[in-house]
């Protein structure tokens, strides 16, 4: 019996030499995906892990934490990785590739990567587009503020920031630099300008902390990344969010990476392929207000208003020299600690 089965298998293999990889049976194998907890995990389970498990028989497990934790994990485990796929921030992806921790994006391995807006797969695959805008207290700003409005004297010392290093912090520095007439390559000017806003009311560990105080007008504004902020606005009447125009919102991307030398490279590629698919990207936009990177996604007008999804919109965004910024990481952290928080 067994032998017959073997022959059958052999014949099948020889008859279909160009069988596509995904038709293979992966049952008993496990793909490990590192990501953020909460809605992202839920959406990935629903739209990516579920279908992948059904198609391949493999099991998908999620490893939850912050993106910094995952960078640490990749570096510590570089000889013997346990993660196959990891979601990282825009500024971490190029550094991870340079260090050889992730596999360079390749549309030959991940077909849907070809549908991603040109030039966005920098270091890893671009998963979602979000912009750094301003969350503001409607009591203090009757009209949606521009970046420059934050520098009005009455708002001094009434800002809130995410703990540094973060894309929010780097983005805000770049904006401050633009307001001062330079760009992020002049950190002296950027920090001096940002310091003019005064020490923040707080560095927040979670959105709740800021929003409660902002709702009551104790915090005037905070540079925040669209997405969760937009989904949270329904809970607070006194808070607005705006994408400013001068300069435009800072473009921030979530990236999805294939970890180098991971145990399940093919499953990882299939996972990423599904993550970048029109279906998943549409769900991200509809449920999380995260802009799709897949150029083929079509949204209703109402949905499109809340996310960044067209090439024109992307063009209006402020794009940072992230590889320069990451090189300044240590120095800027010192400056942030002392000149912004400790002033």
């Amino acid at each position, binding site marked *: 019996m067994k032998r017959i089965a073997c022959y059958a298998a052999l014949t099948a293999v020889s008859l279909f030499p160009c069988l596509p990889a995904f038709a293979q049976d992966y049952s008993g194998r496990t793909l*490990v995906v590192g990501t953020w*907890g909460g809605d992202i995990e839920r959406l990935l389970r629903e739209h990516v892990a579920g279908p992948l498990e059904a198609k391949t028989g493999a099991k998908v497990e999620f490893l939850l934490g*912050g993106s910094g934790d995952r960078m*640490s994990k990749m570096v510590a*485990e570089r000889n*013997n990785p346990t993660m196959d796929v990891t979601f990282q921030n825009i500024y971490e992806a190029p550094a991870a590739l340079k260090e050889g921790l992730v596999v360079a994006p390749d549309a030959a391995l991940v077909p849907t990567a070809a549908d991603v807006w040109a030039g966005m797969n920098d270091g890893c695959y671009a998963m979602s587009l979000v912009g750094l805008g301003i969350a503001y207290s409607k009591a203090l700003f009757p009209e949606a503020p521009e970046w420059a409005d934050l520098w009005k004297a009455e708002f001094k010392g009434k800002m809130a920031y995410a703990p540094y290093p973060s894309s929010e912090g780097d983005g805000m520095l770049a904006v401050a630099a633009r307001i001062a007439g330079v760009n992020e390559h002049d950190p002296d000017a950027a920090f001096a300008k940002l310091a003019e806003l005064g020490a923040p009311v707080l560095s927040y560990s*979670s959105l*709740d902390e800021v929003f409660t105080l902002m709702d009551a007008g104790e915090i005037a504004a905070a540079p925040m990344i669209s997405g969760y902020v937009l989904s949270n606005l329904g809970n607070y009447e006194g808070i607005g969010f705006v994408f400013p125009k001068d300069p435009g919102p800072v473009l921030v991307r979530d990236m999805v990476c294939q970890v180098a030398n991971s145990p399940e490279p093919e499953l990882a590629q299939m996972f990423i392929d599904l993550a970048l698919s029109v279906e998943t990207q549409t769900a991200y936009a509809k449920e999380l207000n995260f802009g799709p990177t897949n150029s083929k996604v079509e949204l209703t007008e109402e949905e499109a208003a809340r996310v960044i999804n067209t090439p024109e919109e992307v063009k209006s965004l402020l794009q940072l020299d992230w590889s320069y910024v990451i090189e300044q990481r240590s120095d800027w952290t010192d400056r942030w600690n002392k000149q912004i928080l400790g002033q």
Partner: protein
Amino acid sequence: MTSRFGKAMLLAAVLAILLFLLAPILVLILSAFDSGNVFRFPPKGLSLRWFETAFNHAEYRSSLWISTVLGLLSTAIAVGLASLAAFGLVRGKPSYRLAMEVLLLAPLTLPLVVWAIALLSIYAQLGINGTLLGLILAHVTITMPFAARIMIATFDEIDPNLEAAAKSLGASPWQVVRRITLPLALPGLLSSTAIAFLVSFNDVVVTTLIAGAGWITFPVRTFSRLRTEGIDPTTIAIGAMIVAFTILVIVLGQRLFQLSRRL
């Protein structure tokens, strides 16, 4: 000497301290009944919806289970090893007692994140990164200082003459341990077990880095969501239920204990 006034003052102070200790938890429990989507106090509308989601949330259920199993395993090992070592150090009075005491306390003096990164690097070299074994070893190490310190204090308090007396009356070493040492050490054992379990059950930093994907504990899940979206009210409801469950277990446990004594 002890006037009624003095007694009343003492009682008031005790109540005030208890209130201080429990106020944040009261806030937590009350907020769990809030009908809104965010954590706020006082609650604006009452509802049980977050308890409902808590029960229906398969991921939270499984991570609570994982935290419990991990906590129990690590606590059993940590308290066991710590008790043996503490007994040896106190009764044996070896020249290396101080050095060993310092070593047993040392994991508490390094920031966990730094230590966990180094441990993970070593695990990766040995190929035990992401395994349950590696995770349990890490948890035993972070709970050991608590267990060991309390057990050392416990054995320090027990008069060795009691053991010697029992021995001289013909008790075997095992009988001495079972009849004399263990009953006397029981309060300390319970304290160190409770603290060790809770330290393991609540750890975020070490578990986030060391645990493999199959071992996402409740605090890791809570914290990873908190950092992106804010606190999930479901977590608050679960926290409130853990508090209620703990109180229930203690009350029942005490009743049973008293019953068993009466029998």
